[in-house]
């Protein structure tokens, strides 16, 4: 049955209406969970607030497990969903750069939008930074065009690469995530006890 739009069950004309609705839900959840504050986001790296880890990994395991069930129930045709293409080198480098950006800027793109929405100046500056960064990237693109396109493995999934069924990955991620949830609960308690000031 699904995915609905690629399968033509919902017409292409609805694409943008659905985009806005999904965006609203996305923004609402991010903001309501506290992702509009860079203090909350950065907290995951310093052990005083693990909200990022909790939301992120809960979402991840629910979506992973859900996709497995949806596939089994025949609701979702896994061959028709978009699989992010893998570019080994550029992705690792990009991830490292984004890691720096995350620590320095305290946001990631989606969360900075919600920060802007409720009037956070640092989120606004982060978004301007994003714009500047991508602009700079585009202008300087010829310099690293070869690297940008290197290491392409195509649209591969974990199963394609390792041969291990997707359900094992779903289970492994779930177990690790649940263990992390319980572990961080105790870390957070200890770190917060030592913190002099913590304001949202």
């Amino acid at each position: 049955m699904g995915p609905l739009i690629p399968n033509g069950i919902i017409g292409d004309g609805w694409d943008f209406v659905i985009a806005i609705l999904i965006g609203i839900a996305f923004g609402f959840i991010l903001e309501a969970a506290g992702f509009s504050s860079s203090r909350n986001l950065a907290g995951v790296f310093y052990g005083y607030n693990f909200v990022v880890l909790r939301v992120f990994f809960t979402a991840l395991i629910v979506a992973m497990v859900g996709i497995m069930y949806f596939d089994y129930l025949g609701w979702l045709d896994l061959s028709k969903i978009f699989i992010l293409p893998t570019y080994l080198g550029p992705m690792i480098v990009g991830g490292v750069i984004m890691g720096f950006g995350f620590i320095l800027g305290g946001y990631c793109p989606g969360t900075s939008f919600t920060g802007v929405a409720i009037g956070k100046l640092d989120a606004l500056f982060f978004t301007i930074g994003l714009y500047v960064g991508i602009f700079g990237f585009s202008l300087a693109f010829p310099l690293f065009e070869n690297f940008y396109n290197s290491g392409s493995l195509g649209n591969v999934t974990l199963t394609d690469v390792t041969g291990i069924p997707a359900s094992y990955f779903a289970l492994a991620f779930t177990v690790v995530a649940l263990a992390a949830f319980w572990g961080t609960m105790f870390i957070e308690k200890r770190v917060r006890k030592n913190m002099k000031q913590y304001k949202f």
Partner: protein
Amino acid sequence: MNRNYIILTLIMLILAFGTLFLKMDDELDQVDPEILLQEIIQPTRYVTTDQVAKMIIKGDPSLMLIDVRNEEDFQNYSLPRSVNIPLDSLLNPENLSYLGIKGTKVVFVSDDDIKADQMWVLTKRLGYKGTYVMKGGLNCWMQTIIEPQQPSGDASYADQETYSFRKGAQMYFTGASAESSDDAKVEVQVQRREKSSVAAGGC
């Protein structure tokens, strides 16, 4: 209060463990048997040797001929621009990559049409679209294109036209000298939808 967290943890764990027991098709994606059966009983998958010949002559870029005979026979003779995928090595991923290209018409060719039709059923089960079977296969190809039979003098105009096309095609495919220049005009309007002429020399 922590009890709820324990329950949540357990639910999530059970859900995740449950995925291990889902019977996933490790196989390639397949069409529902019922839908496949409905497609099988439609005769729309057959194309005639004349249609194939026209497409080859016109150089139709969307045409892909796949020869399902074994390799030895294929080396011995094959239609121009055809690709060899023996029926028993269809599932080789390299061979499957020929199929399912958007906008191409894949025509299966064999000695007659049975093997090609079997190939069609198998590829249809895998969900590939735009696949066809050349009716009559190469035996019919020989009878109609390579050595066309002249219809009798009182045959219909359509038959005469088909024959003149076939003579032209014969020249194209074999380099045979044309018997008369009038007949040798190769008719190349491929996409035209035609009424099937009865006496068009069916195989």
